[in-house]
């Protein structure tokens, strides 16, 4: 019984220790500013950015945010189930306009990264394309004559006609599904511009839809993700995907992230800028107040710098240093000058419908 009397003091001390310990753990585990998790859909080509530990650290430490994402095509995500989602991170203004059409004004939106649409191919294919006068070299960069390419695609020129006997079938630019994913969608918009002889609008586009349908119908099955298409371009070899449409950022990111592989295959892989090309504007669409915080974090000067240096997205810092040396990618244009705007949403809407 006597022992009982001594106990309250001991218990008090133990309790105090427990409280101190709990407080310490609490502080160590994030100091009470538990990061807010934002949920959303993102185009596959930006997953490298979101998975980047350095960038995630800035999100966590400076902005108290983590991003939890699911991969979806830029247009697909607009019609996906948005309940419980804080943001969409598509790759174009078209997706934003599509969103506005369906859901009205979002809480906030901003273009956070840019990258031009490019074509990827292999050295032997480049030589054949150059031989046929489709591709020209200028200041160490390759440019595709889009008028000539559109003609060749419409005529059904075969690879064998270009001297590539080992490639089966007609010349084609493999793209993602233009009704679901942005890079394919932008290539369709670019072709529409080329066929219209200027930026396609709701009236002028009608004339060229049958020709667009012809070109895309030849592609058959199309991937729904730009990152999957690029992965296949690299892994299935020249025969499977001789010429694909993608983003400039994809190759730059690959070269930085996989230096050994790049050293082995870099000589064979070629980036061609369409002339003219279009900008892919990666828009962060905040669906709610919580999502809006994601824009501030993405616009952080260090995030913008890392997005260029490690993932190849053009931001305010790109084109300022010796970029070609940084990436080790030959044929990287310092500035993207020959650019045409994407057709406005009403024209794109007709294109998407025609190609669905």
């Amino acid at each position, binding site marked *: 019984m006597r022992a009982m009397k001594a106990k309250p003091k001991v218990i008090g001390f133990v309790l105090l220790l427990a409280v101190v310990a709990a407080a310490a753990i609490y502080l160590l585990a994030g100091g009470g500013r538990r990061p807010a998790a934002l949920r959303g859909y993102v185009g596959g080509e930006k997953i490298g950015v979101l998975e980047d530990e350095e960038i995630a650290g800035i999100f966590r430490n400076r902005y108290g945010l983590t991003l939890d994402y699911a991969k979806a095509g830029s247009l697909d*995500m607009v019609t996906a189930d948005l309940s419980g989602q804080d943001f969409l991170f598509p790759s174009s203004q078209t997706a934003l306009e599509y969103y506005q059409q369906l859901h009205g004004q979002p809480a906030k939106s901003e273009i956070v990264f840019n990258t031009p649409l490019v074509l990827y191919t292999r050295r032997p294919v480049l030589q054949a394309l150059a031989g046929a006068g489709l591709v020209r070299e200028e200041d160490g960069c390759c440019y595709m004559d889009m008028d000539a390419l559109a003609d060749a695609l419409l005529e059904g020129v075969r690879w064998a006609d270009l001297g590539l006997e080992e490639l*089966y079938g007609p010349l084609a630019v493999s793209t993602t599904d233009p009704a679901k994913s942005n890079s394919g969608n932008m290539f369709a918009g670019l072709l529409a511009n080329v066929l219209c002889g200027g930026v396609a609008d709701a009236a002028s586009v009608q004339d060229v839809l049958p020709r667009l349908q012809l070109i895309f119908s030849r592609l058959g099955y199309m991937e729904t993700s730009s990152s999957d298409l690029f992965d296949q371009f690299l892994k*299935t070899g020249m025969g499977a995907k001789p010429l694909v449409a993608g983003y400039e950022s994809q190759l730059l990111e690959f070269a930085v992230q996989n230096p050994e592989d790049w050293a082995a295959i870099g000589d064979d892989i070629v980036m061609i800028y369409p002339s003219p090309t279009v900008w892919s504007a990666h828009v962060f669409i905040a669906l709610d107040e919580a999502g809006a915080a994601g824009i501030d974090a993405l616009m952080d000067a260090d995030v913008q710098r890392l997005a260029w240096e490690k993932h190849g997205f053009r931001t305010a810092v790109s084109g300022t240093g010796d970029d070609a040396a940084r990436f080790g990618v030959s044929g990287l244009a310092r500035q993207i000058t020959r650019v045409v705007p994407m057709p406005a949403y009403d024209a794109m809407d007709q294109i998407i419908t025609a190609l669905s």
Partner: protein
Amino acid sequence: MNGRKKLLRSGVWRLAALVMAAVLALGLAGCGAGRQEAGGDDVFGSGGVTLRILSGSENRELAPILERYAREKGVTIVMDYQGSLDIMRALQAEETPYDAVWPASSLWISAGDTHHRVKHAQSVSVTPVIFGIRESLARQLGFVGREVSVGDILAATRAGELSFCMTSATQSNSGCSAYIGFLYAMLGSPDVLTADALAEPALAEEMQALLAGVDRSSGSSDWLKDLFLAGDYDAMVNYECLIISANRELEAQGRETLYAVYPYDGLSLADSPLGYVDGGSEEKEQAFLDLQAYLLSGEVQDEIQRTGRRTGYEGVSEENREVFRADWGLQPDRVLSPIRMPASDVLFQCLDLYQTSFRKPSLTVYCLDYSGSMEGEGSSQLVDAMAQVLIQENAARHFLQASQSEVNIVIPFASEPLAAWAAVGNGAELEALYAQVESQPVGGGTDLYAAVAQGLQLLEGYDLSQYTPAVIVMSDGMSGGSMDGFLAAYERLGQDVPVFSILFGEADPTQLEELARATNGRVFDGREDLVAAFRSVKGYN
């Protein structure tokens, strides 16, 4: 209002989750012998995080790599093997009870991932779908040392000089790829397949004639290889890596090896993507990424290349050239220029046509166990399973529809065969057959051998060259009688008819496995996932 609805909905989900958990617990408790504790076709390692992977059967060959990884890392990897089309359907379902998918081609992830659950998908290896033809026959046909078209192969088939086996086009990626290649060739190599072109009447005739020469269609590529090794066939359509693996086995057995033929106008590539199915667990996601990084590491990619798969960005390495042997016709340096897969709507139209009109009609004898031991659950499982194939609305969901001229025979049995009901085609007769299956009473002893023997006897009345014949036993397996009568009947028939079995109720597989061994058949467990097991059986004929 909206918030309230959400709350209600989450309440319903919670309830559903509870029910699911209870069902799962019951299911596990009721799990019979012969299944490993964690379930799955293969279980590697134990403890730690468990990754359940739904994979194409061709990845069975990578088992040693997965096993070693699981052991070293202290994780558990559970592999379930299904055809690529089943993997697509599993992704389309509301719930996908897997942490990762690994089909033969990324096509099936794109077509299946309608819920946007798959991420981190990366190709682990690449292998083309090619023909492997007995070397002497390939030489005789003039297929050695020159470019061969699908048309050349089809001409040899038409002339009766070549027959081959392939997997079912509606279950497995390799069969589907080959079939699409045939369509292109028959339609005169258009740039891309269209719905209009498929409607050409001449196509149906030509395709039926071709598929009539197909030895047997298996539901999975790895099993096709096993079947090929167990039998005496001329050729098979399969992945390059499985042709290599078959050749290693053939050579070890002192048998003639296969010569690899790459049809230049009908080639397809399988890029074997491994993708994470996001179920919200960070632990699992990390475990997945670790496994994927391991599989994609230089050393393991090299090891995978030695199994006959093409890996990495630079093609086959100098050291591994000996795997892709030139004397087997392998061409590691070939630029693999595949045909274009059609857009998904056309692709699915192709598959429907295959199932309902093009493929060789099946002639299936179902021996259904109505003995006393099936009373209750066993019997109701059996009737439910039959509803999945006989009722065409159900069958269409899994590309299991009957074709216009196929024959289905049902022999209900107890201690002796009780009747024999036949239905021709895919119309009213088939529906009537289901009504009979449903109303047949249960009771009495069991002699499944007598029923199978009678089934074989009935097959004697058909010109079996016009059909893909099979016997499917659905039983709990505990039979009296003896196998001798069956073996005598099998010998008298003198035909290569597989006897498949699906187990029900308190099943004992011993006797049914004996039947399968004697006939190149296979035993499926209907107790775990009855419909899936049944679908597999149907795919194999």
